């Protein structure tokens, strides 16, 4: 049943995703050409340089907008399916609430992951068009080969472990982002009877700001300690310690994902009141 639910959720979100992704790719191409114009001739009139720079900025802005639009679409889909009139239909389906929540969480992670992938490809495309001669040259191939050779020589097999850990950590962060959104929306819908949408947006915005502030303060206070502690590490120990640190972060983010999932599931399961 989860597979069917996921199919419907993904169809609903990706119906608009393609359009947004296509716009971001077009903007990447346009931004890349603006970049190429700026790179090719440094004697351009100031007005042309300014317009080309503005086009570049617009292209970068479109990537951020793409990500935000996807977040809004995930929010709307979740809210509309569970807490508007559609909710009556959703919760009368012969599907467990566990499957409903899992489907929404997976849909969010897949949609945000795909968006992040397209945004990264957009940036690469923009850089490629902007300096095509360099990226097609022997020099770039040599630079890239040297970079990977040096990286492999210095960290060896750990590079594969790091890549795996970073991928898992990225997925965990995406899951956290989605579950954080769902928890705030669900909580708002539990405590407010009228104006649920505005309450949901307000609570998410407030909680997100508070959370970002706490994270920034913690990073500010914690990073110096980590730097001082790891300063004396030998080259031999640096790799396993870095791998352990990534694993620690995965567990840490995963732990909070678990808490958010449990809270959201409990609210949906026991506290939901659609009247």
């Amino acid at each position, binding site marked *: 049943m989860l597979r069917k639910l996921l199919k419907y959720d993904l169809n609903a979100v990706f119906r608009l995703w393609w359009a947004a992704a296509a716009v971001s790719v077009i903007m990447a191409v346009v931004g890349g050409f603006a970049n190429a114009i700026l790179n090719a001739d440094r004697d351009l009139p100031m007005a042309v340089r300014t317009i080309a720079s503005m086009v570049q900025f617009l292209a970068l802005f479109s990537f951020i907008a793409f990500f935000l639009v996807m977040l809004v679409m995930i929010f709307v889909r979740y809210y509309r399916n569970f807490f508007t009139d559609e909710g009556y239909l959703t919760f009368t389906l012969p599907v467990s609430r566990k499957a409903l929540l899992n489907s929404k969480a997976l849909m969010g992670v897949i949609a945000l992951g795909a968006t992040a992938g397209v945004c990264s490809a957009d940036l690469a495309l923009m850089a490629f068009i902007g300096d095509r001669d360099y990226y097609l040259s022997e020099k770039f191939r040599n630079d890239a080969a040297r970079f990977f050779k040096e990286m492999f020589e210095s960290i060896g097999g750990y590079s594969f472990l790091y890549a795996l850990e970073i991928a898992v950590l990225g997925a965990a962060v995406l899951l956290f982002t989605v579950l954080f959104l769902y928890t705030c929306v669900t909580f708002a819908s539990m405590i407010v009877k009228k104006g649920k949408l505005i309450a949901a947006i307000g609570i998410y915005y407030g909680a997100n700001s508070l959370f970002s502030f706490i994270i920034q303060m913690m990073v500010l206070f914690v990073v110096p300690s980590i730097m001082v502690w790891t300063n004396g590490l030998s080259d031999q120990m640096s790799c396993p310690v870095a791998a352990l640190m990534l694993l620690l972060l995965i567990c840490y983010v995963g*732990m909070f994902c678990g808490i958010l999932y449990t809270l959201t599931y409990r609210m949906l399961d026991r506290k939901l009141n659609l009247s």
Partner: protein
Amino acid sequence: MKKRICIVIVLVILSVCLCMSVSAEAPFTISEDYKTLSVEGAVYTRVDATMLSVEYPYMDIPELTEEQMQELKCVYLNYSEEMVLMQAEFEFNDGAIFTATYIRDDYREKFEGFLSSFSGKVEIDFGWPEDNTVIADAADLKGSPVTLSEDELSLSDWFQVHAVSEWNGVTIFTGSVLLIDDSYYYVAFKECGISASDGFFPYEYMELNAYEITDEAVLADLNDAHDLYIDSEYGIFYNDDFAEDLSSICLILLFAVIPAAVLVVAVFFTIRSKGYYRLIWGVVTGLAGGELVIFTILAEILRRVN
């Protein structure tokens, strides 16, 4: 309505472009032999002055002739606010880069007077906070000669050394003071053939001849200035024991106390709950427990290292 908005947008863009074109300054031009630069009637002639640099430069791109464009890819021009000294970086089509310094002709005599007035007093500029400098005789910086290896250079912090006097935005850079493992070294640009206008980055050298600074008065001043720099640059975290403790407490709070609290709550609910709730609380228990185990291993490794 849409038509009006479009007209307004087009008008705004056109007026911005027009303003920029009107306000654009007269272009710099370079002679065919690259020996002189001209702008608005002022002529600048090339001088051999690798130690001179403009500390807070303005930047421009000169206009090139057709012939120059066949040879050159681009030219960047840095100049002081007073427009007395110009430094040009020529980027040739074959990838070669060449830098040259130009002095405005009507200032040439005064400039040579300024150079000859250099008394040997130099200022070691720590950059932050403002005016955090040490003034010393250039001769006092030259203690025992040493050769710094690539490994040593890669660990260094470096601070600019320039003549005390500054003239029309032009600064005479004599070298750089390097701090490596609590010892200070002086790299004299002229002796090492380093050009101040190219910028100095110790990481770029395989080895470098320098002088270890041994003058005790200079060393004391350098240490004071460096302490002030570190306190101001990195705030409370480095030289303050309380702040270091605070940072460690935050680290332990974040990665040990919070997960431990989560673990206790999760174990409690895992035991009490049934069905799916038991499974998800179990997963939280596992992740919190795993996090604590990894944190303990890391803390033990780092404790042994430190």
